[in-house]
């Protein structure tokens, strides 16, 4: 007798019922009001496709066995960053998997935190992608170094969420033909201190080697930095990305084939963080 009662009549919600359900859902989502994205002057976010892939993977995972979304870390040698069991998406994912096959994730400097096998997605209660807030693109430093800056506002994180992993993702197209098939070193730094008339103090977070002909998404681990920024928002001065040839010559990031904020929306760089709820949010009694 556990059947769905056919006599239950479907009808449109009345206004007060609509408001009641809206209030109920906002209280479950933990939101004070409904968000107003894309207000005039706000740029569109650069990660809906990636997040939609994650949403589909998470929904599939709920319907079927655990989803293996694992990032095999780079300790040294040729461990690869591979997403297994992850539906190849129309944009960068398939290229990303090719890329991880072609370019072993070797790092010259011991990585900050060795990425290890973990099931980010099924453990995560929340995943959040952040829009890059840098307005002007500086290209050239005082000490004649090419770089790109990226800023992300981590103060919007809903209360009670702890960062379990964070990645900076940037898309690489084929580099400028003058680099032939040279090896290019792409490095990501945390800005420690800014100065008006000299280069900023930087801290190397992660770096990758790529062939000039490589195409696809590059994923840099910035978990430690993100946790630091969540705890000390005033220290969040952003990231610097730069590219060098094999012999250490600094080259223009765009000519290295790296897509900045003016690239097609599906290839713009963004940051994504995975969270675990550190406290149970009790809803107000209604």
């Amino acid at each position, binding site marked *: *007798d556990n059947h769905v009662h056919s006599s239950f009549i479907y009808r449109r919600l009345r206004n007060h019922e609509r408001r009641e359900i809206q209030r109920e859902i906002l209280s479950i989502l933990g939101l004070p009001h409904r968000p107003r*994205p*894309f207000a005039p002057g706000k740029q569109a*976010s650069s*990660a809906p496709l990636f997040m939609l892939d994650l949403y589909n993977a998470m929904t599939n995972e*709920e319907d079927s066995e655990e989803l293996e979304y694992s990032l095999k870390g780079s300790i040294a040698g040729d461990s690869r960053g591979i997403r297994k069991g992850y539906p190849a998406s129309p944009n960068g994912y398939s290229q990303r998997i090719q890329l991880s096959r072609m370019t072993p994730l070797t790092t010259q400097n011991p990585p900050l935190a060795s990425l290890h096998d973990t099931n980010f997605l099924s453990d995560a209660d929340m995943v959040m992608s952040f829009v890059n807030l840098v307005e002007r693109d500086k290209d050239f430093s005082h000490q004649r170094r090419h770089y790109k800056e990226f800023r992300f506002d981590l103060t919007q994180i809903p209360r009670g969420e702890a960062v379990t992993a964070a990645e900076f993702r940037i898309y690489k197209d084929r580099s400028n033909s003058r680099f032939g098939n040279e090896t290019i070193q792409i490095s990501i730094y945390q800005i420690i201190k800014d100065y008006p008339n000299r280069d900023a103090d930087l801290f190397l977070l992660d770096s990758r080697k790529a062939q000039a002909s490589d195409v696809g998404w590059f994923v840099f681990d910035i978990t430690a930095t993100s946790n630091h920024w969540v705890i000390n928002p005033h220290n969040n001065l952003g990231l610097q990305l730069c590219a060098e040839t094999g012999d250490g010559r600094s080259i223009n990031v765009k000519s290295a084939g790296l897509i900045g904020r003016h690239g097609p929306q599906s290839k713009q760089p963004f940051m994504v963080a995975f969270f675990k709820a550190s406290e149970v949010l009790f809803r107000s009694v209604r």
Partner: protein
Amino acid sequence: AANNKRKNQNRNKSSSHQESSRMPSVGDYNASEQKQACKKHELYVSFRDLGWQDWIIAPEGYAAFYCDGECSFPLNAHMNATNHAIVQTLVHLMFPDHVPKPCCAPTKLNAISVLYFDDSSNVILKKYRNMVVRSCGCH
């Protein structure tokens, strides 16, 4: 009910109607409880109907069951739904103040994942466990 009826009999000797001494037959019980037969309704919450499709990216909405009435449902291999409902109902009839009737409650809850934009056009994917009622049964 039988006890109450007997007390009533003692109290008003005069009334010796045949009905008052009759045990409520299963027919009466079912007839009187018929209005409470187990029902599981589906409530579909559509984010589009709520006018929220500009910030909720997925899903379109979500379907949740809610239950009312009195149900019985398999508890395990031996104590199946019917046995449980009979035993529970008989004991309820004997001790109506202490033993509840078999009744209906959510017994299987599923998670729902919501993908939405926040005020700054960041994208948030959040998983809410135990959000959607998928089946009903006795608690």
